[in-house]
């Protein structure tokens, strides 16, 4: 009886131990598969027997990962009958953890007497995560879509995403769990040659019923969705583009006051890549040519127009005068307003002034005539090609061109610290 009890207890203990081991067994790591593959090739060449093993790391694999990799390979070799050690053996394996620009390459040089054979396995390069920085505001980005076609502008509207390409407007619909899928494409007949730095604008209609799209020589209007599709009409146009849609309340200027504006339009130089400086309604002062503009809220409840000039100068049009804004040396050519609710409530998000391949976004506030950074730069891993406020202004939409001419639309939001 006692023996039976003991046997039952022992069996139970073994079952529990096995269950615990099964639960506690580590998931396969990133190196398990390539280690097994390389060991398999080596064993196929050498066959069972003793061997000396050396391992060198020429790759970006961290030093503290090398010993575990060596252990994995040794275990896999041992399981295949290749025993490690024994100075008396003439056979040796020299393993090199190497890599190219595209992939890791693990190489084994197997020496048997005066013969050397080579085994090799490829494995993908792991992506290195970029550290995030803390600041008064934390910018973060979320990819919405990506593709290989150039995207000039993107607009989230009515649960859809509208993108403007040089020759078409694409409307995406969100699908639960599957991201965005193309719902509709509308061709744009281009009458002008494509520019090298093409630009375009997508702006929601004031009543939220649709959007306006502008590219060089063409204007489009989209309304909907009705019965699942949008009605989009395009026509040749040299009219000014709607670039901002918010009230601009300006103190009266000498020689004529600017009226509050529901929309704000600017004439675009169709053969270049900038707005010529003629805006409607006027702001009581002549503007120079500029690349982008944003409205800066003022403490009095009004707003001033900030322009990012072709000459690199950032200026504020306010009270019928134009004044340079200091602290904008790191600014690129794109700026958009973000109503984050943090700090003073509204920040300007700007692209960086660095080399195009390593662009970044950063939040600023302009309390007077000086731009004050309120966030750390957010690396965009590509060149920021366009930057526009979302209709609710609680995020900005950035179009980023990646190194391999891939385009990505990102939603950029801010967290208060």
């Amino acid at each position, binding site marked *: 009886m006692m023996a039976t009890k003991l046997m039952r207890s022992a069996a139970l203990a073994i079952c529990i131990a096995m269950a615990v081991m099964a639960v506690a067994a580590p998931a396969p790591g990133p190196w398990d598969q390539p280690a097994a593959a390389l060991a398999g090739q080596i064993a196929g060449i050498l066959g069972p027997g003793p061997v000396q093993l050396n391992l060198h790391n020429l790759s970006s694999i961290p030093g503290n990962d090398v010993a575990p990799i060596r252990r994995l390979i040794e275990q896999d070799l041992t399981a295949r009958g290749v025993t490690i050690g024994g100075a008396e053996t003439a056979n040796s394996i020299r393993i090199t953890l190497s890599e190219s620009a595209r992939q890791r*390459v693990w190489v084994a040089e197997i020496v048997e007497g005066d013969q050397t054979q080579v085994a*090799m396995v*490829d494995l993908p390069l792991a992506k290195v995560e970029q550290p995030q920085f803390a600041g008064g505001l934390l910018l973060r980005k979320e990819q919405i879509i990506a593709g290989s076609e150039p995207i000039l502008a993107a607009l989230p509207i009515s649960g859809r995403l509208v993108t403007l390409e040089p020759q078409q407007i694409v409307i995406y619909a969100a699908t639960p769990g599957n991201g965005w899928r193309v719902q509709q494409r509308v061709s744009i007949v281009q009458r002008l040659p494509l*520019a090298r730095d093409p630009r375009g604008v997508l702006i929601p209609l004031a009543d939220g019923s649709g959007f306006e799209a502008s590219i060089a020589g063409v204007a489009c209007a989209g309304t909907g969705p009705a019965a699942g599709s949008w009605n989009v009409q395009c026509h040749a146009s040299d009219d000014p583009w709607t670039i901002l849609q918010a009230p601009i309340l300006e103190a009266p200027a000498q020689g004529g006051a600017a009226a509050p504006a529901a929309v704000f339009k600017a004439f675009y130089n169709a053969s270049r890549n900038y707005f010529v400086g003629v805006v409607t309604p006027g702001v009581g002062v002549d503007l120079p040519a500029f690349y982008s503009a944003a409205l800066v809220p003022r403490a009095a409840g009004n707003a001033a127009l900030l322009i*990012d000039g072709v000459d690199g100068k950032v200026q504020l049009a306010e009270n019928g005068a134009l004044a340079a804004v200091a602290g904008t040396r790191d*600014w*690129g*050519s794109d700026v958009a307003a973000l109503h984050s609710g943090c700090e003073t409530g509204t920040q300007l998000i700007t692209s960086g002034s660095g080399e195009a391949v390593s662009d970044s976004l950063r939040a600023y506030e302009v309390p007077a005539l000086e731009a004050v950074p309120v966030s750390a730069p957010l690396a965009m891993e590509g060149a920021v090609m366009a930057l526009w406020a979302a209709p609710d202004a609680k995020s900005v939409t950035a179009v980023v061109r990646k190194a391999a*001419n891939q385009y990505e639309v990102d939603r950029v939001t801010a967290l208060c610290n």
Partner: protein
Amino acid sequence: MLRRFAISFLLVSAGACAWGRTRPHYGGTLRVEVAGDGIHSSGGLVLRLVLDGLTQMGADGSPQPGLAISWKAESSDHRWEFQLRPGVQFHNGLPLTADRVVASLNQSCNGNCPWTTVRALGASVVFLGDSPMPNLPWLLAQSEYLISLTDDGSGRAPAYYIGTGAFEFSDQDQGQPQDQSSSRSLVANDGYWQGRPFVDKIALSTGRSIRDQWLDLSVGRADVVEVPPEEMRQAQQQRQTVIGSPPVTLLALTISETGALANPMLRTSIAEAVDRAALFNVIFQKQGEITASLLPQEMTGYAFLFPTGRDLNKALELRGGLNTPPLTMGVEGGGAMMLAAQRIALNLREAGFDVQAADMNRVPHPDLTLRTLPIAGSDAAAAMEGLLRAAGEPVAVPRQSTAELFRAEREFLDRRTLVPLIDLPRAYAIGPRVRDFALGADGTPDLASASLEDAP
């Protein structure tokens, strides 16, 4: 490891500006100076400005649409069909058609092509090969296969290159023979299918010595000048703004399989006798990378398997009592190339070979040739095939695993007809007006995307 792939390096940055960096400005004239003619030298700089290929090399090394918008392979890569981009015109207004593309391609490689036949099929170009052509989309991005008009519309061959590219020869240049002019003006193609270039014009001065180029850059008479690899250190010391590429050329010694060096033991002896480290340290001023592999380590990850050291004892042992008559070495290019050839001749003399180095034009059938071969793009299989084709070995390199690529390379190098020596970068120095200057995957400047800071 990735350092050198990221070295489109700015050795000395331009001075800080008071205002932020803007989008690129349109307008102005970019002044470029080169030592050669810009067509057969400098990586075919002029050709890259005037002509386009069916494909173009993406930054990641993959082939991207060029004059072809799509392509597909059939019959195990024996047949490829490339769909042409609609609406593209040559600079003289003639439309791009499949027939014109076929005529250009037939002229480009004179029968030594990766394909057996190429023909027009509607708006497509079809390539047929007796052997598989796994790397064809990559190869078609190379300078050799750029598309130019072979008939100016009146049944005559054009006197100058007429392409579809970002720039075209100016009116006054069109009357001059394209390989004899000492200066050229290239004007922006307003209707370019990839977008008009930012600068209005490129003033290209050819046949300028490096010393004169640097002088012109220093006094503001030039915006872009060449920096040979062996001069990069000096350029850095002079605080020039130097933009360099990853390795894009392989300095190599090719050995004739016929004649005095038909015996593979002698060829191996020569390979073992060459002192790469001396070439690298002394002649090329430690620029680039010593190699015994066809492709750089960054491209394959296995270049370290080919030992680069000199083994004079082994060279002497392999040569043994074999007698060889005096050998000739042809040298492609002068300057550092000739110095390198003389250094190699000294190495070989120590191994018992009597070698005379001379300009390639003076040695019709050399036993040895010191030359540079292109490493085009960052795709290993395609780059290897392109390099082997340039070396006169038209073989298709399979697009399989790294291990297969290594086996193919080792098999070729074991013949000892080509001895890799040094991977070399290409570099340019730029003036303070120039912005967004970048080098393509083959080290050729992308001048269509460059702009001028002081443009109107």
